[in-house]
């Protein structure tokens, strides 16, 4: 059957038949690099148009509809426009840090692609501490935001960056604790093993109510971590013009924008992997016939379907909840989410030891 892992294997076989081992590795690296870059660019384009179309749909208006069929090439046109804009560096700015920040944002977003399983047996690096890697690398993102805000020599930027710093580090805790709930159940940090443990049902269904609480906490925490509304204090348009990237223009702004959207994709992919079974099709216990029908749908469609469902959910939040104030935001995390997710972790541990999941 047609699948990503078959393509990867046949490329690997063809290369090792025609070249010596060193060249095979080098060519494979180049192919992987080009593939990841194209995926990156494609994701950026798709997510931006999706965001605008979803917003339009929520507000009962048309949204972009001039460029291409139903406005589908709008984000491509926007990219071209940004390409011919001058990338200004303000006079009083710290030039080195100012130019370094978008690179760090991009590197972080790119590195997070490594442990994600896009389809069955199709993963860049199935490292044995995959989940820890994700939570470790994603916290570097805050450094690029602080760097951008500090180096801009702009009060709005600095304020946005400080808010964002306080917010991201706070919500990292409950995101981490809700990830740990899944790790306790599986007993492994490896992404492929976590997916394999959901063969007979996804954790959100298998784990009863505590797992559902963990999922909800995770979604709230990652919405805050990616600086999306209702937690978009870092770039609150109506208060701080554009927050930490007020001074960025042209391609450097586009890189921040891209990294932000790809981060949304990545956290949703992690959420889909941990709680909704990644590429694993929807299986119900012993219904063999039903399970067979579900297996016919390719694994990549399952993965992208779940991920885009979560992305849609996060876009939905934006048009449902008003923005929080900074003290409300920190209260929500420290007084509610953190104690809830700590107690929830204890309950999940007791459940895992008693075996109260099926």
């Amino acid at each position: 059957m047609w699948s990503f892992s078959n393509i990867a294997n046949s490329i690997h076989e063809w290369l090792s038949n025609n070249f010596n081992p060193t060249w095979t590795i080098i060519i494979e690296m180049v192919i992987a690099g080009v593939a990841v870059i194209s995926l990156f660019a494609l994701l950026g384009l798709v997510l931006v148009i999706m965001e605008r179309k979803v917003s339009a749909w929520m507000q009962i208006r048309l949204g972009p509809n001039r460029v291409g069929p139903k406005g589908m090439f709008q984000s491509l046109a926007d990219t071209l426009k940004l390409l011919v804009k001058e990338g200004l560096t303000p006079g009083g700015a710290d030039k080195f840090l100012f130019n370094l920040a978008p690179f760090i944002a991009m590197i972080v977003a790119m590195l997070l692609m490594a442990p994600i399983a896009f389809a069955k047996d199709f993963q860049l690096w199935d490292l044995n501490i995959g989940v820890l890697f994700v939570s470790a690398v994603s916290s570097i993102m805050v450094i690029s935001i602080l760097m951008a805000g500090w180096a801009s020599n702009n009060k709005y930027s600095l304020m946005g960056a400080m808010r964002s710093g306080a917010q991201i580090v706070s919500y990292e805790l409950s995101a981490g604790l809700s990830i740990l709930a899944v790790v306790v159940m599986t007993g492994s940090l490896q992404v492929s093993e976590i997916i394999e443990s959901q063969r007979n049902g996804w954790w959100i269904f298998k784990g009863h109510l505590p797992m559902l609480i963990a999922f909800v906490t995770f979604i709230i925490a990652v919405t805050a971590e990616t600086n999306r509304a209702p937690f978009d204090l870092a770039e609150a348009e109506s208060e701080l013009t554009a927050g930490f990237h007020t001074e960025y223009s042209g391609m450097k702004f586009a890189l921040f924008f891209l990294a932000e959207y790809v981060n949304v994709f990545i956290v949703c992919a992690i959420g889909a992997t941990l709680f909704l079974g990644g590429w694993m099709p929807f299986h119900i216990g012993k219904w063999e016939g039903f399970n067979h029908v579900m297996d016919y749908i390719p694994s990549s469609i399952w993965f992208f379907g779940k991920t885009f469902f979560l992305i849609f959910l996060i876009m939905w939040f934006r048009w449902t909840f008003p923005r929080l104030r900074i003290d409300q935001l920190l209260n929500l995390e420290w007084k509610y989410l953190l104690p809830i997710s700590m107690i929830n972790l204890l309950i999940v541990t007791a459940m895992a030891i008693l075996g109260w999941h099926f």
Partner: protein
Amino acid sequence: MGASSLIVLIIAAIAFSGIAILVSKLVLKPTTNKQKGEPYECGIPTQGKTWTQLNVGYYLFALIFLIFDVELVFLFPWAVVAKGMGWIALVEIVIFFFILFMGFLYAHKKGALKWM
């Protein structure tokens, strides 16, 4: 692909951003203007220095975060073996959380979690 994928990804990220910025630099001719270099603060001339003192609240939260983040790092190896160890793992983590929670309550009593 193994660990080499990290190198590939870092190089890909730098190449992608570098090429994008370089292309945009080649495409256009920069113009000079005295007001271009000024910080954008809604068109109003900027007042005073930017790099100045900020609310202490941000730093307090960062400090409390540090405690809990270290706790989280300790929890990762525990979580992997918790299921196999049985009840002793739960008892240990309850004691651990209790000590941590005392510190949290102390910070709360001292008003570190209140936004000023």
